[in-house]
């Protein structure tokens, strides 16, 4: 794992008379596996550590070269030390391993043919490696009843080998408590106390963590294909903003499953359920697979061919585009053709669209407020006032402050990392006693409930609450005050540190201390002081916040805290969770040449279309609108939106799903889903990553930029990359990925998308036509949609573009777990991505906090301007009875594309209004009854549920409704209102 180890750190060991230089920090098992030796194991997992439970990895250790007797040791429990002499191949240890697996297999049911794990099974691999062939046991097998574990996992307890990996993962690693081990000896049972869906958002990983088929992927089972038939390519998860690396597996143009692709900086070994199961939109019946032209006269739509669609597009766009160019020439900013970009498509597509319509006519497909916040994040990253951490760094930090972001739902993989981060203090304690971090059982025993400092400031409790050392549950308004206190305290400390440097006089600091302690007791709350103390005692503290609250003031304050912290502690970091897979790059696409930046989001788009009072009438009304992969109905109230859309003559939608927005279009152009298109994504830590297409699209493999290519004159991703780096220098590293231009069909460096053993080649299409088809050719990608080319696991040896592991297979290691033996083997940008806001640059930034302060003030001043309509009416129309709303995020409902998956949809909770009983009492709300929520633009009806833990001055609504309703609303019990309504007409 530690590939960065220098030669001097290495020790030499001898395995079967062969000398190796290895890292001393690992256990012997991991060392053997990294060296590529085939040593069987079950209970060990490189992320979960060793417990020495399965006794499978026995090897023989000798005292020295003279010792010929030796002793059996468990490799996973043995630290590597200098001059170690080991044998894996001697008869005794081989026999031990073989007998052990024979014992394990006595209870294994005879059901490999009907097991989804077959061909992808660690137990099969290990049995083959250890050489056990013949079953000698003639007794009866123990059996177990299965449980229903929800829509994502099948349960088949007969197959269990009792390695305990599942409980260690689910309980110890993910913090779940609805799953456990019951019974003892051969009666062991891994399951829930009562059947029911597993609650943890990482439960899907059990399918991979289990070395055999006890837990198998249920949605995969519904369209099951053996692993050797799956065609794979590496790409980026299309849901939340963390940019986890995934491998998409496909057969017959249907996505069959998604597996984790190990990236040690980001997702490591695990993906959340959204990432694992949120792919069904690709196979969905509402997929758009052909261009559609609305025919209003006949009230139907015509299916067009690609060339017809391109002609139509040109016909609709050309006059408007010419107009746009003219206006641009005449220094008039606004033209007739406008476009809305997408936060879920690849960067190239937005760039092409932006070039087509011009930057002033290009609106970003998120609300204005979000654009503003994204810009705040990006400018903070760019001027280096905060250092964005990777998830791995977040896991390694020693104190964290989470501000108003429910990361368990908005960025689950980050929450899992923070869960591990809270163990760091315990691991350090163990290290002081000389116990290595991979000694999982011992470390946990020493740590007990020791937790690294984790402070959470939020309006409601979250899944991480149980780990928090300091949790402050207050309303957003109070949060601003608390954050200001923390800022002032940090600023004090900074001054103090500076003074110390400058004067170095003892007396003065003493008096300063006195002053500070005096002021502290007077004006700051105890929690603010405790948080600051915890952050400042740490070496690498970090601040985590996000866009969930849609509150620029809070984000500004959080950025300020992170920036102050960075000046005090050079290793301090920051993580800003954004909302969609690719929305951070919007923050970079903002033109701020003038004093104030323009935040062109969806609100601005509505204002532009509906026209604003006071604007000159000569101003051209837009008549053509291109909407790229955005469902506007998720952000705007239907009435308001439809009024705007009605004002536009031609609406062109480019999307892959028939969203409500697409239903409003005159011309729909299909685009490829994440599995069918390749391009770049920018994750919320500022990591630019490239995803590859697993297969080409249904009928017309069209990327949105490709539809526009004739009009934009950008015919190749490389040209788009070049245009981008010219206009947005910060995005210049994207040109690294233009290298693909040189990959063509004849390249010797092609990678086989299918494994060598892919089957049914001459039969699968024979029913339609017995003559075999040519393999599908796709240029611009190194992945061939056939078994021709270099095998995935050999890529690194021959491939100039190394994207390991495309195909988690190597000889003898058929299961996906085999690929996890090694870490990221390649350091190419294709595998690791490019961090745009590199942290290696010097962190000396003068007067940064002042800048920030002013920026924040600016924001505060700007806010009413940018969001004028909402704010004004808030103060006027809604009386003091209006309640501050906060979003209640939920993993299973918040992500647009994921909710097309039936397994994920069925896990989403009923939408409800969560409210503190005391507030409910003052509003006459009754639990379990509906309430009317009346905001300025829209209203909603929700069931009331009471929540004792949350802040008593706010009300929680589902995130989607929060986006529509805004920050304040009047809440009345529906029963009363209904009564009034009934009374009125009579």
């Amino acid at each position, binding site marked *: 794992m530690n590939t960065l180890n220098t030669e001097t750190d290495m020790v030499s060991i001898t395995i079967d008379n062969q000398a190796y230089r290895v890292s001393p920090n690992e256990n012997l098992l991991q060392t053997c596996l990294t060296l590529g030796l085939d040593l069987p194991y079950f209970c060990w997992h490189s992320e979960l550590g060793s417990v020495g439970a399965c006794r499978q990895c026995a090897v023989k250790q000798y005292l020295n070269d003279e010792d010929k007797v030796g002793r059996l040791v468990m490799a996973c429990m043995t630290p590597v030390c200098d001059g170690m002499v080991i044998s894996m191949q001697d008869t005794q240890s081989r026999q031990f391993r073989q007998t052990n697996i024979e014992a394990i297999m006595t209870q294994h049911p005879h059901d490999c043919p009907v097991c989804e794990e077959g061909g992808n099974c660690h137990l099969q691999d290990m049995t083959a490696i250890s050489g056990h062939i013949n079953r000698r046991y003639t007794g009866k097998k123990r059996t177990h009843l299965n449980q229903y574990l929800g829509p994502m996992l099948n349960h088949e307890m007969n197959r269990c080998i009792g390695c305990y990996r599942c409980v260690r993962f689910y309980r110890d690693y993910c913090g779940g408590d609805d799953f456990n081990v019951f019974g003892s000896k051969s009666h062991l049972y891994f399951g829930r106390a009562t059947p029911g869906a597993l609650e943890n958002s990482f439960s899907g990983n059990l399918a991979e963590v289990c070395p055999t088929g006890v837990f198998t992927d249920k949605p995969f089972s519904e369209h099951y294909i053996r692993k050797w038939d799956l065609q794979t390519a590496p790409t980026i998860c299309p849901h939340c903003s963390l940019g986890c690396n995934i491998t998409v597996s496909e057969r017959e143009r249907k996505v069959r499953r998604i597996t984790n692709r190990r990236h040690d900086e980001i997702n490591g070994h695990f993906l959340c359920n959204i990432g694992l199961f949120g792919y069904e939109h690709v196979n969905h019946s509402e997929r758009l697979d052909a261009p559609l032209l609305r025919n209003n006269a006949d009230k139907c739509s015509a299916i067009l061919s690609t060339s017809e669609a391109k002609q139509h597009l040109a016909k609709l766009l050309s006059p408007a585009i010419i107009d746009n160019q003219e206006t641009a020439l005449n220094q008039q900013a606004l033209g007739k053709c406008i476009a809305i970009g997408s936060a879920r498509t690849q960067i190239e597509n937005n760039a092409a669209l932006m070039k087509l319509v011009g930057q002033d006519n290009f609106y970003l497909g998120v609300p204005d407020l979000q654009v503003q916040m994204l810009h705040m994040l990006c400018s903070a990253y760019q001027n280096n006032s905060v250092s964005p951490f990777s998830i791995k760094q977040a896991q390694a930090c020693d104190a964290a402050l989470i501000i108003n972001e429910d990361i368990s739902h908005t960025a689950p993989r980050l929450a899992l990392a923070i869960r591990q981060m809270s163990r760091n203090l315990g691991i350090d304690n163990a290290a002081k006693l000389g116990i290595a971090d991979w000694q999982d059982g011992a470390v946990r025993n020493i740590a007990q409930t020791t937790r690294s400092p984790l402070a959470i400031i939020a309006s409601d409790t979250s899944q991480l609450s149980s780990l928090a050392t300091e949790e402050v549950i207050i309303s957003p308004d109070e949060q601003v005050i608390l954050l200001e206190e923390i800022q002032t305290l940090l600023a004090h400390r900074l001054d103090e540190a500076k003074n110390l440097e400058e004067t170095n006089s003892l007396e003065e600091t003493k008096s300063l201390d006195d002053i500070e302690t005096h002021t502290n007791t007077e004006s700051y709350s105890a929690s603010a002081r405790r948080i600051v103390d915890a952050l400042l005692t740490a070496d690498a503290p970090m601040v985590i916040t996000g866009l969930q609250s849609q509150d620029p003031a809070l984000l500004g304050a959080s950025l300020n805290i992170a920036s102050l912290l960075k000046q005090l502690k050079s290793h301090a970091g920051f993580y800003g969770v954004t909302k969609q897979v690719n929305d951070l790059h919007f923050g970079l696409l903002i033109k701020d040449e003038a004093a104030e930046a323009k935040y062109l989001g969806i609100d601005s788009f509505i204002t532009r279309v509906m026209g604003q009072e006071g604007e000159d009438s000569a101003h051209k009304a837009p008549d053509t609108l291109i909407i790229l992969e955005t469902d506007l109905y998720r952000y705007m109230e239907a009435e308001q939106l439809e009024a705007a859309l009605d004002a536009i003559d031609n609406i062109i939608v480019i999307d892959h799903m028939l969203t409500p927005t697409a239903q409003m279009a005159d011309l729909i152009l299909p685009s490829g889903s994440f599995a069918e298109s390749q391009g770049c994504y920018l994750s919320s830590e500022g990591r630019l990553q490239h995803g590859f297409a697993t297969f080409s699209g249904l009928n017309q493999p069209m990327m949105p930029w490709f539809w526009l290519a004739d009009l934009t004159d950008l015919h190749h991703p490389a040209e788009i990359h070049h245009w981008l780096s010219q206009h947005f220098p910060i995005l210049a590293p994207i040109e690294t990925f233009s290298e693909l231009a040189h990959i063509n069909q004849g390249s010797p460096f092609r990678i086989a998308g299918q494994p060598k053993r892919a089957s049914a080649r001459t*039969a699968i299409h024979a029913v339609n036509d017995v003559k075999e088809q040519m393999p599908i050719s796709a240029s611009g990608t190194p992945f061939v949609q056939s078994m021709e080319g270099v095998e995935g696991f050999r890529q690194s040896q021959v491939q100039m573009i190394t994207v390991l592991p495309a195909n988690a297979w190597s000889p003898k290691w058929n299961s996906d777990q085999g690929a996890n033996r090694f870490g990221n083997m390649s350091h190419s940008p294709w595998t690791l991505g490019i961090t745009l806001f590199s942290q290696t640059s010097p962190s000396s930034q003068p007067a940064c906090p002042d800048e920030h302060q002013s920026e924040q003030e600016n924001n505060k001043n700007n806010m009413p301007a940018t969001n004028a309509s909402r704010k004004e009416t808030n103060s006027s129309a809604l009386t003091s009875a209006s309640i501050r709303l906060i979003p209640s995020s939920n993993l299973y409902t918040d992500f647009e594309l994921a909710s097309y998956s039936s397994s994920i949809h069925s896990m989403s909770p009923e939408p409800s209004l969560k409210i503190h009983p005391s507030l409910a009492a003052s509003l006459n709300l009754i639990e379990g009854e509906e309430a009317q929520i009346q905001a300025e633009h829209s209203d909603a009806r929700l069931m009331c549920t009471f929540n004792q833990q949350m802040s008593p001055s706010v009300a929680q609504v589902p995130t989607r409704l929060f986006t529509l309703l805004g920050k304040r609303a009047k809440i009345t019990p529906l029963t009363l209102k209904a009564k009034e309504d009934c009374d009125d007409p009579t």
Partner: protein
Amino acid sequence: MLSQIRTLITILKHTFTPADTVQYPEQKPYLSPRYRGRIVLTRDPDGEERCVACNLCSVACPVDCISVEKTEKPDGRWEAKTFTINFSRCIMCGFCEEACPTHAIQLTPDFEMAEYDRQNLVYEKHHLLISGPGKYHEYNFYKVSGKAITGKAKGEAIDEQAPINVRSLLP
């Protein structure tokens, strides 16, 4: 001289020996039950399909001429949604039969499959499925395997104990 006479005798002798060739198609040769001809899908003794769509025949096939797609019946059995053999590619090697863990796929002594149109050599599941158990009369995969199906609960397979009561405190 001598050799010429020997040749004549040999030829004359062969004139009176019975011929090895038979008058096919009027006369059919004997083919052993293990002859590798047309492939069939058999049923278990209870009349249920033996094929569990495990894909092992498909992956064993050296010419990749078998395509199987899995589906699951409501009773819990796996079965083939589609099962296609492209006999225009098949080399009758019998690897599929060897690979089959449930004795479902079997080669029969029938070899008369010639067609004028290649497309007719593509056999689908209903062409392949026969009503009997073929060469193996007794074998029933689900009676041996630990997977529960309707009519055979956990612990009812051959050599299985009754399911463990997890809530019992007895040792």
